[in-house]
Each structure stands twice: as C-alpha cells, then as structure tokens.
C-alpha cells in the first residue's frame, strides 16, 4: 500500500505541469537569465594583464626597487595572473601608444612619479592603485630606514608576511565570483520551492483541509504512514529536479563543484527535505486559505533568497554584518552558504555548521507538524 501511495504521488507530481515549471524550469530559466545579464561580472581574467608603458628615463634606471616591483607584476615575470603587460619606451613613444589606444596609461618615473592616462576607467584605476600602493610602501620603508635602520629588517619581514597573507586569502580555493553568489542563492531558492510540494502533502492528508484528505482519513490507512510514503515521493522528485538544475549549472553555466559534488548533493538533499517539512508545517499550522499558505511559502523562499544574495550579493554581507541572526535562521541563506563554503573555503566547518542548523530546522518542523497532525479527528471541516 505504501509503495502504491509513493508511486501515485510520483505520478501526480510529474503530471502537475504548473508545479514542474516552477520547481524545475523556472530556476533553470532564471539561472540562464543571470548568466546573460551578469556575464561580465566574473570575467576578471579579461582585465589582466593591463597594457601599460613605463618611460625608461634616468629616474627609472636609478630606482631599482621600482624596476623590481614592475618586473614582479608584469608578464615578463612568467606569472599567468600578471597585472601588467609592460613596455619600456621613451616618453614620445609612450604618448604615441596612449594616443593610438595600445596602452591604458604610462608611468613617468621621477621625484614625483606620474601616471598619464587619457580617460578614466577600471584599468586606469587599477594602475593608479598599484602606483599608490608602491609609493606608500616605499615612503614607509624610507621613513623606517632613515629613523631606525635596525628596524629595517623587521619591517621588510612584516611586509613579506603581509604579502603572504593577502595571497592566501585571495587565492584560497577559488577566486570569489559575484556570479557564484547568485547561483548559490538561486540553487537554495529553487530548493525551497519544495515547500509547495509540502503544502500539497498537508492538503492531501489533513482531513479538514480538503475533501480528498477527508476521504483518505476515512480509509483504513494510518495517515502518518500515508504522509511518509507520499512525502518521500515528493522529496525524491524534488531532489531529482535539483539535480537537473545542478547539472545545468555544471554543464551549461560552468559552475564547477569539482570533487565536492557529493557534498553539494548532500546539502541539496537536506535542503529538499527541510523545504518539504517546512511546506507541511505551513500547510498544517498556519491558518488561512490555500492561496495564503502558498504565499507564505513563496515569501519564505523569495525573501530568504534575497537576503542570501540573490539579485544583490552585497545584501548577503550587509545582512550578515548588521543582522547576523536573520541569516542564521534564514534557511535559504544557510543552504546557499553551505554551497558557498564548499566552493570558497578550505575545510568543512562552515559547511557542517550550516548543514547542522538545517537538520535541526528539519527536525523542528517535522516534530511541530506531527504534533498538529496527530489529531485524528477535527472540530470542524
């Protein structure tokens, strides 16, 4: 009997075209739209190396530290992620290169280091920042050496340490990509669309919510067994739909989950189960019409996804910083953050922590739903 309920539930879900669209095709559509709309966000590789020139004058030849710094960040260093494609030229040649658009700017070494550009933009700003950083570091080093030559060695070591720290954080595991924050929030939001499946479960098992449920309650089947069979089918279908979305992101949108894929699937399984438990909870406990309850599920998934960084990734950080509790109890954010943690961070502590909270939520919503559902007859229908 249980298998038949499971089997028929699969059928009813798969034949519900509206549900299939919202839970499977809509997230795919949204992900594709993100890809088109924000295609340039993640393409940092196209910015670098920045074609730049330096005027090879007397000051340049005299400033060995500056020469070394430029050599270290230019393609001549052999670094595949070099910042600059540097040409050493005369002032006249540099001006010509700038005029014909071959370079974004050129540096004129001297007592007063100059950066010459003919327009403002991202590349020019990066060149300005690079130069400012060098000038600040060389000025600090000069001050330290002139005032306390003995401390020069410590200062240089500290400078090296700082450099080392920045490198580890930036490269870490994967370079941060705003687009991925969108994708992870979208994946989490789609997962919480499972709440709609949960709502249907509640409507089909609570005798006071629909005539069909009343009929099932009048039959000789234990309603919680029927619910278990039916909601297992819902979790299964929802997990499959999430796998389709994951596959689409992986194959078409090139979101690489790499060796962490099993953990991504685990997080999705937990998220799917929670979303359906949440839907059952809303269907059972929240008072109101079917449309109202449906609205609550939509609100939870959409607002939750918004705070998790969908539409505006900065919002995730703002909420985390200013209202940390919201993101700790926002299940959509917890799931998105689990994906995020797998992608960006070494180790699994953040991932595990998120998953643990999601599991606790699942237990809570299941227990609360059971508490309300165990009533076997009703005050009114």
């Amino acid at each position, binding site marked *: *009997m249980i298998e*038949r309920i499971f089997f*028929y539930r699969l*059928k*009813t879900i798969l*034949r*519900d075209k509206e549900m299939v669209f919202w839970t499977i095709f809509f997230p795919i559509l949204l992900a594709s739209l993100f890809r088109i709309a924000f295609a340039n966000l993640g393409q940092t590789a196209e910015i670098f190396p920045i074609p730049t020139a330096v005027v090879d004058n007397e000051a340049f030849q005299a400033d060995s530290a500056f020469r070394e710094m430029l050599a270290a960040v230019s393609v001549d260093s052999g670094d595949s992620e070099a910042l600059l494609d540097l040409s050493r030229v005369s002032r006249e040649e540099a001006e010509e290169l700038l005029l014909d658009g071959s370079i974004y700017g050129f540096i004129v070494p001297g007592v007063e280091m100059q950066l010459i550009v003919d327009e403002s933009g991202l590349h020019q700003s990066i060149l300005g920042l690079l130069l400012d950083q060098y000038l600040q570091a060389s000025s600090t080093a000069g001050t330290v050496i002139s005032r306390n030559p003995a401390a020069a060695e410590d200062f240089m070591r500290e400078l090296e340490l700082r450099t080392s720290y920045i490198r580890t954080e930036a490269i870490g595991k994967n370079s941060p990509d705003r687009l991925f924050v969108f994708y992870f929030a979208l994946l989490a939001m789609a997962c919480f669309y499972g709440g709609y499946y949960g709502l249907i479960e509640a409507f089909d098992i609570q*005798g006071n919510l*629909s*005539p*069909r449920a*009343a*009929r*099932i*309650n*009048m*039959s*000789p*089947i*234990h309603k919680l067994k029927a619910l278990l069979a039916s909601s297992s089918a819902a979790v299964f279908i929802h997990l499959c739909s999430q796998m389709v979305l994951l596959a689409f992101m992986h194959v078409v949108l090139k979101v690489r989950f790499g060796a962490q894929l099993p953990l991504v699937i685990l997080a999705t399984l937990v998220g799917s189960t929670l979303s359906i438990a949440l839907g059952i909870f809303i269907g059972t406990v929240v008072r109101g019409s079917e449309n109202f309850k449906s609205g609550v599920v939509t609100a939870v998934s959409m607002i939750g996804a918004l705070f998790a960084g969908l539409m505006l990734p900065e919002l995730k950080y703002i909420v985390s910083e200013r209202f940390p509790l919201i993101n700790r109890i926002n299940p959509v954010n917890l799931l998105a953050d689990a994906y995020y943690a797998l992608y960006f961070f070494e180790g699994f502590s953040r991932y595990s922590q998120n998953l643990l909270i999601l599991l606790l939520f699942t237990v809570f919503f299941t227990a609360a739903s059971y508490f309300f559902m165990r009533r*076997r*007859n*009703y*005050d*009114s*229908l």
Partner: protein
Amino acid sequence: MIIRVKELVKRYGDLQALDNLSFNVQKGEIFGLLGPNGSGKTTAINCILSLLKYDKGEIEVFGKPMSPDSYSSKRKIGVVMQEVAVFEVLTVRENIDYFCGLYVQDAERRKHLVQEAIEFTGLEGFENFVPKKLSGGLLRRLNIACGIAHKPELIFMDEPTVAVDPQSRHKILEGICELNRQGATIIYTSHYMEEVEQICSRIMILDHGKEIASGSKEALKAMIDLGEKNSFEVYDISDEQLMKLRNMPEVAEVSYRDTMLLIKSHKGSNILERLLSFFKQESLPFGRIYSEQPTLNDVFLEMTGRELRDKATGQGVQT
C-alpha cells in the same frame, strides 16, 4: 444492527449542529437522512465516520465503538462525499485504483474491482480521461466509483446527485439500488425528497440537527393530516364558488393563484370525483388537472411550517 447512534450532540460554538440525535440502521437498509441544507445530515455522517469530534453521545458501527483507529470497521465502509474528492491529474482508472488500493492490497483483485466499478458506474470509454475532461454527471459517477470500488458492506452517500443531469441522476439512483440488492447497507443523505422517497426503505427527517420524524415514507405521510392534492387550471372563479369549495367537509385548504386552483383534502379523503361534479354543477370551465399524493415536503411543511426546499417539485399525475 450496523449503526447505532445514541444522543449525539455536536456544537460549533453557540450553534447546535446535532441535538441529541439517535437512530439505528439495520443491515440491508437504505436509510435516508432527509433535511434542508444545514440540517445536520453531513455533520452526522462525519461524526459517525470519526472525522469530526462530537461533544456528547455514542456511536457504534458494526457493533464496535467507532474511532479514527477503527481500521477493521473502516475497511468495510465506503464513502461517497458531497464534494468530488479525486486527483485532478490522475485518469479515471488511476483514481479508482488509488482509492480502491487504500482498502485492497491484492493487485489482481483490485484490477478486477476497478473494472467492475467502471462498468457499474457506466464510465466505460472514459477510463483514460482526467477528471477535468468529464461532464458534471460523469465526475459524480467517478466520485461514486472511488467510494464503492472495494465493495464495502456499508456505504455512506452524502448528496451524491447534487448538480447532476437527469440521465446521470437516474443512473446513480439505479446503481444505489443495485448495490443494496448486492447486500450493501446504505446511508443516503439528500435534500431532494423525490430521491429519498424513490430509493430509501426508511427515512429520518432532520431539521436544525434534530429528528423531526422517522419511518418508512408511508409511515411518515401517515403522520400528517393531509390527503391528496388536486390542482385545476381555472381562468375565472368567483369568491362565492371558492367559499363553497372551502365549506366541503373533506377539504382542508383552498388557494387560487395565477389561474391555478389548489385544493388540499384531509387524510383519507378521495374527492377528485366530487370536485369534478362540483365543476360541472357550477358550469365552471377548467383546463389541466393535476392530482398528487402528499410528499415528504408536505410532511416537512406540516411539521416545521417550512418548505423542505425553496421550491418543492411534486411528482404529480397528469390527467
């Protein structure tokens, strides 16, 4: 005895939906619960089936107290609810199979029962239709098929013919009688007195959750003073002639409206012949004549002072 209900009380806040309702249903009966909308028929059924909590009283089904966990009793019960309760995305056959499967586990037997239910309700040719492709009548038949496919011993039918075309209604009522002939005991609720009169062996009339009267249709009609009702199409009649009619000892009531003269007689009086003589004697021309026996609506009207339905539909004999 299949059902025993004793002093059942159900309140919705201040509203008393069932007021010390007691009745028994014997094996093999078609027991009708007749009453206007809101009289407590569906509430009584839902209490018997343990879907609704009740405030007081005792309910026994198949000799055992009924509770939500009475699975052995539930296995022998079929329910056809007032609202169509099927899955919109499953076909006719799948819906029947699903609900039959809640009672019957054996796949072969179930297949056979599903086919029987399809044939019984006349749904052949529609097996692969989804409910939204069915007409109102066919949808009602599907609702019935889902409730009776497992061959229950006791069937609750709550207004199964609401909003059904005459052809489907006839088919449904015929089917109910056939189920009864096959051995099922049936509890049938309706506010259509003709249906109840037609199929029920015993009837209880409810109003405001209370029993007004119960018994066979003949016994119920015997409880009131009203005899046959004769209606004449008369285009002109004087006050004097009306007075003469009213003064006849067998006549209980005379009314004249829109060319229709209605004459109600006292119980046991057969005055059609006498009335025809009166028309001849008075040289009073008339058109159509209808003569009908008292209906359950008359019983309800006499006992409560209200019509059973907004507009009663008498089953008359045209002469």
